[in-house]
């Protein structure tokens, strides 16, 4: 898309503004500030009206830099713009030189190296100077229904609050929610932008658009990034929309609509909410808030810790990193729209280096305690520290890890947290990587919060553009939000596709307000979070026991050749068959996990021949009747289900035993072994359950999984969360 760009001189200096509809801008800066509003009905631009403008307008000069410019260039110019005193004396030719110098990189990217004047652009022209409209301004002086436009701008800004949408998505939203605004959307959006309620930017832009400042960090700082997903952008194609021969587009988030250099990205600003805990920590409302949810002691303790985390006031001093070299390396500008400066994937090693250096900084020794919320406040840096000379990283939302074992009742624990934030007028997001979890969670949340309208978002959801205070969505949909939420809860953060996807992590962080809070929820947090929690950098709470107060069943092991060779010989190890017979005779439902989809069918066939009369099925991600199979397994029609990691989480079957074939396979890491083991013994009536790792090798992940389960049991026992202590120790 191409836009109009102009420079404006106000009291405080020059500013460059992007315009989608120049008439609105002229109105806003010149006419709107005068008496013209009263004369509007006469619809005549008389001489005395112009005199009136002269007297009252606070704007001294407006220079049209370009009537139609690729949006990417305009954003680059605007974001890199710095007002200087010389600009007051600029002639149109000087402006032209300034533009050419600022857009040097962009012009170089065009296949024929052109100067700005030769690229078919018009000369910058004066639109308004010393209270007189310039010659070119005649076309801008039009009469609009100002009041109606203001109302529409308010409606659109409300609808876009906290959203981050591409133009195509805006069109969909308008079609659904505000169809009457569709024809003149550019004027309405422009007015909302001028009012400061909408930020206009481009989908892909330079990470650091300020000219000159990129030199320190080298070329990396000038590379293009997607402002929606934070990925580096390398592909440029000729574009018929902006006319550039090298318009970049982001390949990482294509599935969510194409974000490109000339694609308009709209970010609606959200209202600031009440800061938490005005009266210090005195008002921390644990007891009364927790009572009505019927939580188990373990759940209650952890939820209390999380509530204290939410109620904790923001650290007074902005967290700074003490070590000077780290700050030098990592200084990131926090000017308009540069929040996407460092994407997690590219800068990971820098982050790690920073983390490392932070430990060497004097006086920053985090305090560790399970469930405590210290250790987050930053270190005061004395002013002589060079860190002060360079702006440090943007304030990041505070994070909290709720580490609850499988079957602990995580969902119940988030209810009091949601209630707390909603009661304070905040906006909440519960995000999870998996769509089926979203669909399963939606009715439960609706039951607990009957008075709230819950917006349930996923690909193809009918509520995609709905406004609400309580959102439930897949992690991909977080890309459509920007600084929107006071509390973001990420459930199952170690699940595919969120795990190891820097794009989604970026989107999640961007969706949370800088002063908002993050709560991660997992039974098997990824290693880096566990380490951070262990060293006290990440406040966390553990729920080591299941809601029914029985310890987690510990996996045992059966040695067997790899499944591949068992299938070749058409036989399983006798120990496995004996153990399974025991499970069958005790009436348990049997999960059999295999590492490969191609194993499912032969394994099912082999089991069928072994256990005739037993209903045995297999299911995988490629199975169309997966949900049917799971349902009939739950209702004990199917007794033995052979499956892959697709069912490793989120499935609760009352009385079940778990067999993991090829547990030494590299497909099963520690987390997925723990999750699969977590399918057993979930109900109160059958808390024991059998878990068997069937493998040829005893690998590190199996060892780790067993150790993790034992440790959680030990912690639970120590804290007295287990009901039948004596029976368990045996």
């Amino acid at each position, binding site marked *: 898309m191409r836009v109009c760009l102009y420079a404006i001189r106000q009291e405080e200096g020059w500013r460059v503004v992007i315009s989608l509809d120049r008439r609105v801008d002229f109105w806003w800066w010149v006419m709107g500030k005068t008496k013209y509003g009263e004369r509007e009905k006469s619809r005549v631009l008389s001489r005395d009206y112009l005199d009136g403008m002269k007297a009252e307008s606070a704007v001294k000069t407006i220079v049209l830099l370009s009537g139609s410019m690729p949006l990417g260039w305009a954003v680059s110019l605007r974001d890199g713009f710095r007002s200087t005193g010389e600009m007051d004396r600029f002639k149109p030719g000087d402006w032209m030189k300034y533009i050419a110098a600022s857009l040097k990189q962009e012009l170089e990217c065009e296949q024929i190296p052109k100067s700005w004047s030769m690229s078919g652009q018009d000369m910058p022209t004066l639109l308004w100077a010393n209270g007189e409209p310039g010659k070119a301004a005649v076309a801008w002086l039009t009469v609009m229904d100002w009041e109606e436009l203001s109302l529409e701008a308010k409606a659109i800004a409300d609808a876009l609050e906290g959203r981050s949408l591409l133009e195509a998505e805006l069109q969909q939203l308008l079609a659904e929610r505000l169809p009457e605004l569709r024809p003149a959307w550019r004027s309405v959006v422009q007015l909302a932008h001028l009012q400061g309620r909408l930020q206009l930017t481009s989908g892909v832009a330079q990470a650091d658009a300020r000219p000159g400042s990129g030199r320190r960090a080298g070329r990396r700082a000038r590379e293009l990034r997607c402002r929606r997903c934070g990925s580096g952008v390398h592909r440029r*194609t000729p574009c018929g929309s902006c006319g550039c021969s090298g318009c970049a587009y982001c390949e990482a988030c294509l599935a969510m609509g194409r974000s490109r250099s000339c694609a308009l990205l709209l970010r609606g600003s959200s209202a600031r909410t009440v800061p938490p805990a005005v009266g210090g920590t005195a008002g921390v409302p644990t007891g009364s808030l927790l009572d009505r949810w019927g939580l188990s002691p373990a759940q209650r303790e952890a939820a209390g810790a999380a509530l204290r985390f939410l109620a904790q006031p923001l650290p007074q001093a902005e967290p700074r990193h003490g070590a000077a070299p780290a700050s030098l390396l990592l200084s990131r500008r926090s000017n308009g729209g540069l929040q996407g400066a460092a994407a997690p994937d590219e800068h990971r090693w820098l982050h790690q280096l920073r983390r490392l250096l932070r430990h060497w900084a004097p006086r920053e020794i985090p305090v560790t305690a399970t469930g405590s919320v210290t250790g987050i406040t930053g270190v005061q840096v004395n002013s002589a520290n060079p860190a002060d000379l360079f702006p440090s990283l943007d304030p990041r939302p505070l994070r909290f890890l709720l580490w609850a074992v499988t079957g602990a009742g995580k969902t119940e624990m988030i209810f009091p947290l949601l209630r707390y934030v909603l009661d304070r007028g905040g906006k909440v997001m519960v995000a999870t990587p998996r769509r089926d979890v979203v669909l399963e969670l939606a009715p439960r949340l609706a039951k607990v919060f009957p008075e709230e309208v819950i917006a349930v978002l996923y690909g193809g959801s009918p509520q995609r553009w709905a406004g609400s205070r309580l959102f439930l969505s897949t992690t991909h949909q977080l890309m459509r939000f920007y600084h929107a939420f006071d509390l973001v809860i990420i459930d199952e953060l170690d699940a595919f596709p969120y795990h190891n996807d820097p794009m989604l992590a970026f989107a999640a962080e961007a969706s949370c307000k800088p002063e908002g809070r993050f709560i991660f929820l997992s039974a098997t947090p990824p290693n880096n979070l566990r380490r951070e929690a262990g060293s006290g950098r990440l406040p966390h709470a553990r729920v080591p026991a299941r809601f029914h107060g029985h310890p987690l069943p510990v996996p045992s092991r059966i040695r067997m050749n790899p499944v591949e060779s068992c299938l070749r010989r058409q036989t399983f190890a006798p120990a496995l068959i004996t153990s399974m017979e025991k499970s069958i005779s005790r009436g348990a439902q049997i999960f059999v996990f295999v590492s490969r989809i191609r194993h499912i069918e032969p394994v099912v066939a082999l089991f069928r021949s072994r256990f005739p009369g037993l209903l045995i099925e297999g299911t995988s991600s490629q199975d169309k009747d997966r949900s049917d199979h799971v349902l009939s397994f739950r209702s004990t029609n199917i007794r033995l289900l052979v499956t892959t990691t697709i069912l490793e989480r989120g499935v609760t079957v009352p009385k079940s035993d778990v067999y993991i074939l090829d547990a030494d396979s590299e497909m099963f890491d520690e987390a997925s072994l723990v999750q699969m083991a977590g399918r057993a013994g979930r109900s109160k009536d059958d808390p024991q359950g059998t878990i068997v790792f069937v493998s040829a090798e005893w690998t590190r992940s199996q060892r780790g999984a067993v150790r993790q389960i034992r440790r959680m049991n030990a912690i639970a026992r120590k804290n007295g969360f287990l009901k039948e202590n004596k029976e368990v120790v045996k």
Partner: protein
Amino acid sequence: MIMNMPHNCNEKESPSRARKRNWNRQCYGEVGERFRFRPEYRHPCETVNESGTPPYSLIDWSTAKEAVLSPLHNLLAPPGLPCLTCGKMISGKVKGYPEICNSCYISIPWIASPRCDTCGRPVGCPDCSRTGKGPRHFVLNRSAVSYNAMMKEWLARYKFRGDESLGSVLSRMTGVAATRLIKELRVKSAPGKFHFDAVTYVPVSEERMLERGFNQARNLAEEAAAVLGSPLLDLLVRFRHTEKQSFKNRWQRLRDLQGIFRAAPGAEDLLQAFITRPTRNRFPYSIFSSESDYLNGERHSSLPIRLLLIDDVYTTGSTVNTCAAVLHEVCDLLGRQAEIYILTWARS
């Protein structure tokens, strides 16, 4: 507790495993290996930290190591590329298509020999033999592939989602079909003298261009023109913006296409300029040129202008037929006969 210890759940144990266990015991004590490095564990002397020395137990050595080593690893053994279409790592590269994996390449439904001579369908075609339908303005159509579900997905990703990296794959496929077409025509026509005067494509409306940013048919045509050595000309414009063709049935398609396409302003001049342009092998004063070649200029006007029209998908042929009709009009303005050939990427 001990009964559940995984080491003990099998009586037999390989000697190497037993050795390893003993070694572990010696190094780390009976409790279990790597106990010391568990984050919860603190050595007593490290907890006293008043001198300001860094708390080494808190340093994330593994991530630090990873931070230093993984770029080196990547440098020494760059990770393989994922297949553009299925996302799996490419093991065996296909010649000419480095972006896609072997199994994806194998499943491309190439149309090697069309059954229908007119529309290039690989199966019997009732449409072309049907009587009572409107006039056909083109000579024949050839397509690179049949439009199956997989090809449909590829095109949707390219065209609607804007994944332009797929564009080059589709263009190359069209280029292959163009070579095949010209070979076929050279065999059919008198001794190998077939040449297209120009290549053109089905345009998109201006609105769609602003929205999408590219015209898939033009990108395909670029490659075809390069393969054939003919000029690529912008001869047509799309006037009206219609709903996406893919959502309509046959009857709606035929009805909606009336008057959508027009000749681009100055199309006949453009075409004139290119068909009268002398080419090297028709250079009149060459000592190798025979008399008939010398007379080429005059003889040319009696020959029809041969144009190749490119589109992405041929379904009913209504779009290309409408375009072909307009191209005939353009050639009529030049007072010349025209032969329009169609090349599409897919035939549904």
